[in-house]
């Protein structure tokens, strides 16, 4: 396939390596080293995309990150990528790309009907209409949504992986152009740990687009030498295809590395890698972006940035057209004219808004015989899907209108340059301000909050020699500030300095009619925001840059306004009569500099690695038993153990009956366990818990309640005195880490005088809780050094000895209301002991039970669960737990009991509920009303906190928090569901063994 616009020689592509690809289904060919954009241009493809709002045909307008038009959908299926800039896609064999947001294609797009109605669709038109009828927006929105959006999201899960690196360095250098490379050399020579990151596959930055010299040789030779030298420094890391997308506090930067040349596919690598870099010093050598001139119909395919035309020629050996007009307000674009001319491209003329430019570059261009049309502007463009000709007129004296006779010039490309904007995005991310350089009409970095510096073009230095000098200086200084003072005596490279004469900044360029009445002056090409839109915004009253941005959507597209924002702000300033564009608002750039993949942010924290799973020592046994799981915090806990053919209720009934009638076993290893030691441990517990601990005897257990300082219940658990100065505290499963933190906080910050140490021992122990009438029989078989009789080993006591030959602690504590033994053995013995108990217990009908049965059994006893009967608004008194509140000492939260709201008589109180039909299990979270009504709203008096069917009671029952509940015993209330109100009776919250006789059994 012929690449009709490809030069036979020149450029940095490899003509020996053809690369086949398709665009909108057409097979095409480019070369290794091409981008999709350069290959499309080489093949003479002009219309690549349609715009967002008016669906105007668009071509390639840039050669890098600033491309606003040429977005494509890359590939299809699970690896598809939306909205990719053709200028940033390295060409690979088999690439398949399609145009987006147009149908059937970019050359003929039915959605272009929008442009017929463009006069009805100025900036913000949607705020002024679509308001009738009241519910109408939903209707209009449906169509607007379908028309909007650009590319399409993948529909399948991402097959690729992403990873992250966390690194520290002395100097992070962003940008591998001349300034950045020079800085890297200087810093590298001093021995600093350096990271040099550049967004492109090749280092060199703007040098890749130029034919300039360093030290009298081609500049790229210097780049190669520099790369070779840097490769020798073990502490220098060069990251190519790596965009520094965000600059955060304290010199922390986020970098996105694309790891392979093929953008869509990680292959055997992760596709992208996100680097977290903490640098002592940051050098921002991020270069500059050219801005376009804003003239009428400046969006036609063929209008592009002057530097892009130069880049396609010099770097890719591609002629962007056959007759090129260079349109400029500055000297730099003459480089483009000269390069194109010397590359064999016909230059129709150079149009300069200035009069008689006489700098070195204009002089050189004129010497080549190129025609100059000065003091003039483009006033119109003919050709919809590609430029056919342009109309040019002279500027009037004030440059706010045109004069003379229009002249038509045939051409197919307008390469325009409105000057260069330093890339100060990263500086801005980190909290630095921008300041407007009025003389040159550009924003440069102001004061920084970080240990950073902007150099080179990013600092407004556009001379190569100056960039090199700033680079070496900055690199050396950064290394020195990072503590590396070693200096190098090598000669610095030199480059020719070409004097450039000042630009003539005009922003929106006039036509024969007022702006907006002839053609469209586009500022934001992707979002179709024009000068007229910005002027309308100013007229409508949206007078700051932020208002205008939001009202017109200027700069809100995927390119984030890299070319349009600054002209846009200047146009706004003019519309408001403000001289200095810096005065309409401070530009704030927001990360990321270029879009960053979600998957890269997530890194490896996806799938099973999303969050660690905590498993008890007996986890494997549970799994083999076929239990179902409940997630509690990070833990997996058996929920219930269904046998073949059993429903959940069947299984829970069986487990509940076994616990009350035979023996049942629970894996309680997940309960938090905190070892507390020190001479002041008892005093510490006195302050933390609501009850008193000083007199607890060694070997005895006690239930404790912890409150926050506002008096609300925070956690509960049993704590045992193991020695005079040694306690073992248990906490709820989900709260274990929080409670440990709570204890340490009070000890360290408020009571540093207390001699107490806390240590989490949750994972040191496996906890096997046996309960039921046969529990003692079973356990007796396993121990000969502990007397398990009720007399020798009473409820709420601890014994240490051996169980099954394993050193163990046995606690006689119970959460089920049954006689229980909580056996703790070192975690590594947990599975062995569990298995032995299961085997030996078979004859007693041992039954493993899960959290559901545990909940039923404890609720039958009216025992609370923190987080279920409490929700952060519940005090102990509300639960009828006044008995646990010491009257003789202070404790955390106590003072809050005396507040008005705490003393209200009508607080919600814990009660039992019995559904009257004896069959319906109430919904947990069901609300309770006093009145049997279907009216809404209906006053609520409380809610169901726990609700189960009880096999032991042979009926459903529930716990609830009800306003003034304790004085409502016997009252009938209702729990409204969608279809009916369920009647229930308020009862005591203790349903089983109210005297607690079984505990002591």
């Amino acid at each position, binding site marked *: 396939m012929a690449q009709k616009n490809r030069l036979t020689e020149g450029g940095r592509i490899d003509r020996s390596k053809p690369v086949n690809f398709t665009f909108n289904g057409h097979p095409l060919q480019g070369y290794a080293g091409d981008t999709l954009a350069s290959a499309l241009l080489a093949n003479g493809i002009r219309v690549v995309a349609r715009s967002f709002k008016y669906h105007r045909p668009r071509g390639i307008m840039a050669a890098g990150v600033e491309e606003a038009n040429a977005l494509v959908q890359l590939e299809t299926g699970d690896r598809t990528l939306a909205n990719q800039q053709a200028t940033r896609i390295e060409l690979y064999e088999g690439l398949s790309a399609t145009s987006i947001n147009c149908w059937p294609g970019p050359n003929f797009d039915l959605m272009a009907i929008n442009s017929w109605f463009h006069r009805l669709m100025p900036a913000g038109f949607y705020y002024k209409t679509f308001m009738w009828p009241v519910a109408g927006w939903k209707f209009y929105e449906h169509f607007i949504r379908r028309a909007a959006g650009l590319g399409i999201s993948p529909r399948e899960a991402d097959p690729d992986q992403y990873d992250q690196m966390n690194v520290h360095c002395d100097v992070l250098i962003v940008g591998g152009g001349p300034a950045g490379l020079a800085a890297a050399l200087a810093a590298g020579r001093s021995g600093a740990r350096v990271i040099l990151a550049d967004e492109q596959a090749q280092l060199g930055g703007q040098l890749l687009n130029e034919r300039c010299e360093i030290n009298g040789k081609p500049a790229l030779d210097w780049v190669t030498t520099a790369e070779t030298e840097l490769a020798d420094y073990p502490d220098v890391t060069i990251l190519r295809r790596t965009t520094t997308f965000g600059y955060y506090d304290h010199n922390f930067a986020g970098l996105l590395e694309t790891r392979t040349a093929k953008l869509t596919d990680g292959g055997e690598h992760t596709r992208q890698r996100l680097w*977290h870099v903490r640098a002592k010093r940051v050098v921002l050598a991020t270069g500059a972006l050219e801005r376009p001139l804003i003239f009428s119909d400046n969006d036609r395919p063929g209008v592009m940035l002057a530097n892009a035309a130069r880049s396609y020629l010099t770097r890719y050996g591609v002629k962007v057209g056959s007759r090129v007009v260079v349109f400029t307000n500055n000297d730099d674009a003459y480089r483009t004219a000269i390069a194109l001319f010397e590359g064999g491209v016909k230059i129709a003329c150079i149009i300069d808004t200035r009069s008689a430019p006489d700098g070195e570059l204009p002089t050189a261009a004129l010497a080549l015989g190129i025609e100059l049309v000065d003091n003039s502007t483009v006033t119109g463009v003919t050709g919809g899907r590609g430029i056919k000709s342009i109309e040019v007129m002279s500027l009037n004296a004030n440059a706010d209108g045109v004069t003379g006779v229009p002249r038509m010039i045939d051409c197919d490309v307008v390469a325009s340059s409105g000057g260069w904007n330093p890339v100060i995005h990263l500086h801005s991310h980190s909290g630095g301000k921008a300041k407007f350089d009025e003389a040159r009409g550009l924003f440069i970095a102001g004061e920084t909050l970080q240990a950073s510096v902007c150099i080179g073009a990013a600092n407004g230095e556009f001379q190569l020699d100056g960039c090199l000098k700033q680079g070496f200086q900055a690199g050396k200084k950064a290394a020195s500030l990072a503590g590396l003072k070693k200096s190098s005596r090598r000669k610095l490279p030199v480059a020719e300095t070409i004097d450039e004469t000042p630009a003539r900044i005009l922003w929106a360029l006039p036509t024969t009619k007022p702006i907006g009445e002839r053609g469209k002056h586009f500022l934001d090409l992707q979002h179709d925001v024009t000068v007229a839109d910005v002027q309308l915004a100013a007229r409508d009253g949206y007078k700051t840059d932020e208002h205008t941005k939001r009202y017109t959507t200027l700069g809100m597209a995927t390119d984030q306004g890299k070319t349009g924002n600054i002209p846009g702000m200047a146009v706004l300033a003019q519309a408001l009569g403000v001289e200095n564009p810096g005065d309409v608002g401070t530009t704030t750039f927001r990360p990321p500099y270029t879009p960053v993949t979600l998957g890269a942010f997530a890194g490896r924290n996806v799938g099973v690695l999303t969050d660690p799973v905590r498993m008890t020592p007996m986890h494997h046994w549970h799994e083999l038993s076929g239990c179902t799981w409940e*997630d509690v915090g990070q833990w997996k806990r058996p929920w219930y153990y269904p046998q073949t053919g059993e429903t959940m209720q069947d299984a829970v009934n069986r487990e509940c009956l076994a616990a009350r009638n035979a023996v049942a076993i629970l894996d309680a290893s997940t309960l938090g366990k905190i070892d507390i030691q020190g001479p002041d441990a008892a005093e510490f517990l006195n302050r933390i818990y609501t009850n008193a601990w000083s007199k607890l005897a060694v070997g005895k257990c006690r239930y404790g309640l912890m409150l926050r300082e506002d008096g609300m219940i925070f956690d509960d658990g049993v704590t045992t005195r193991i020695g005079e100065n040694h306690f073992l505290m248990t906490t709820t499963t989900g709260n274990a880490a929080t409670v440990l933190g709570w204890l340490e906080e009070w000890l360290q910050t408020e009571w540093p005088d207390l001699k107490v140490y806390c240590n989490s021992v949750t994972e040191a122990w496996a906890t096997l809780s046996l309960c039921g009438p046969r529990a003692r029989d079973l356990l007796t078989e396993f121990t000969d050094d502990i007397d398990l009789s009720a007399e020798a080993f009473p409820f709420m006591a601890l014994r240490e000895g051996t169980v099954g030959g394993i050193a163990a602690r046995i606690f006689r504590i119970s959460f089920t209301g049954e006689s229980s033994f909580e056996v703790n053995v070192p975690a590594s013995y947990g599975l062995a002991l569990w298995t032995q108990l299961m085997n030996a217990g078979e004859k007693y009908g041992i039954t493993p039970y899960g959290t559901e049965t545990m909940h039923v059994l404890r609720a039958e006893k009216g025992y609370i669960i923190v987080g279920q009967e409490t929700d952060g608004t519940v005090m102990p008194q509300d639960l009828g737990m006044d008995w646990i509140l010491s009257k003789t000492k202070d404790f955390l939260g106590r003072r809050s009991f005396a507040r008005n709201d705490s003393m209200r008589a009508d607080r919600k109180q814990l009660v039992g509920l019995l559904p009257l039909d004896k069959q319906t299990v109430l919904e947990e979270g069901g609300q309770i009303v006093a009145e049997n009504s279907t009216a809404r709203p209906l006053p609520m008096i409380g809610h169901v906190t726990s609700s189960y069917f009880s096999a032991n009671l042979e009926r459903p029952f529930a716990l609830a928090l009800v306003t003034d509940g304790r004085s409502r015993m016997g009252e009938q209330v209702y729990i409204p569901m969608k279809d009916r109100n369920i009647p229930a009776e308020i009862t005591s919250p203790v349903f089983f063994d109210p005297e607690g006789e079984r505990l002591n059994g």
Partner: protein
Amino acid sequence: MSKYSIFSLARNALNFHKNWEQAWRSPDPKESYDAIIVGGGGHGLATAYYLAKEHGLSNIAVVEKGWLGGGNTGRNTTIIRSNYLWDESAAIYEKALQLYEGLSQDLNYNIMLSQRGVLNLAHNLHDVRELKRRVNAIALNGIDSEYLSPAQIKEIVPIINISPHIRYPVLGASIQRRGGVARHDAVAWGYARAADALGVDIIQQCEVTGILRDNGRVTGVETTRGIIRAPKVGLVTAGHSSVLANMAGIRLPITSYPLQAMVTEPVKPIINTVVMSNAVHCYVSQSDKGELVLGAGIDGYNSYTQRGSLHVVEEQLAAVCLLFPIFSRLRIMRKWGGIVDTCPDASPIISKTPVDGLYINGGWGTGGFKATPGSGWTFAHTIARDAPHRLNAPYNLDRFTSGALIDEHGAAAVAH
């Protein structure tokens, strides 16, 4: 105020849109007003609008240190809902939602209220219990509210991952079908335009530097554009509530944290509702432009920088990738930070203060946008009558002394 409509749009198209009236004037501050509202965000502008419209108080000024809607109004994820647990919250958020439902017409400004439904996901049994509690309470308060099974969720959001085997499986969800999103900027601009038409002076680039008092009564404010006097001053400065209150010698139970949000590149419609998960900190909706709008959890420390930390965003996007594995290849286009003023009970303050004539509205945490009309409506009442409305009476400053908090933290501690 000239009316906005398709007809005015067509008429103006004929002359290239050159004759539109300014949406609001830019007056210089007068020497004195009947009331001054400090803060030109949605809440402040709504307050001014309802003061003028409902209470006939039109000699008032809104003073804004930057640009209208430049604080949290322009930085949120635009979600609107009224599915709150406690009666007090349900009442005020539902008032707000009802005002939202007629707001485009009331203001003659399309705020693009899109009631596409808001889902809150449950990922464990504790979440399920809590969500059902909410769903039942909300329904009994007369507000639409349903509980959905995973299969029903899948019908509404076909791209969500409801596999029971993922780390945080989706066990159920609540849905409020009247919930949805609105265009945040339009809410501020619409209120500003309508308030201006009623005679309210909206004064931008005017920072309050002091609050003038005499004998325990407020007398005006000191600003970067001079002293402005008024017998009544309302502070509605989300993100700077403590700073402003401090100028009047008032300490608040408020802490200010960074909150980050972000949008992806635009894609064709892929998700047509709002999905929220408190447990894994992720809020997802799709804007009319096609961007996915994503919200993170708050950063862990006080800050006024409007910048958050990257790891907070990373955790949130990992959660998005877990629930929506197909979004992994989309790209974040822009992220930003706001400052959220949070109260200990996660409920706001709309209250009189110890200084006579000085009123405060703040502490909305992450949830202020959805309350905008209700907040302004009740605050206007409070300022005009020097007494709270029934709807905002519970949101007084005294509750921190009495303990009558309105705890909307949602799920509290986790279960055994």
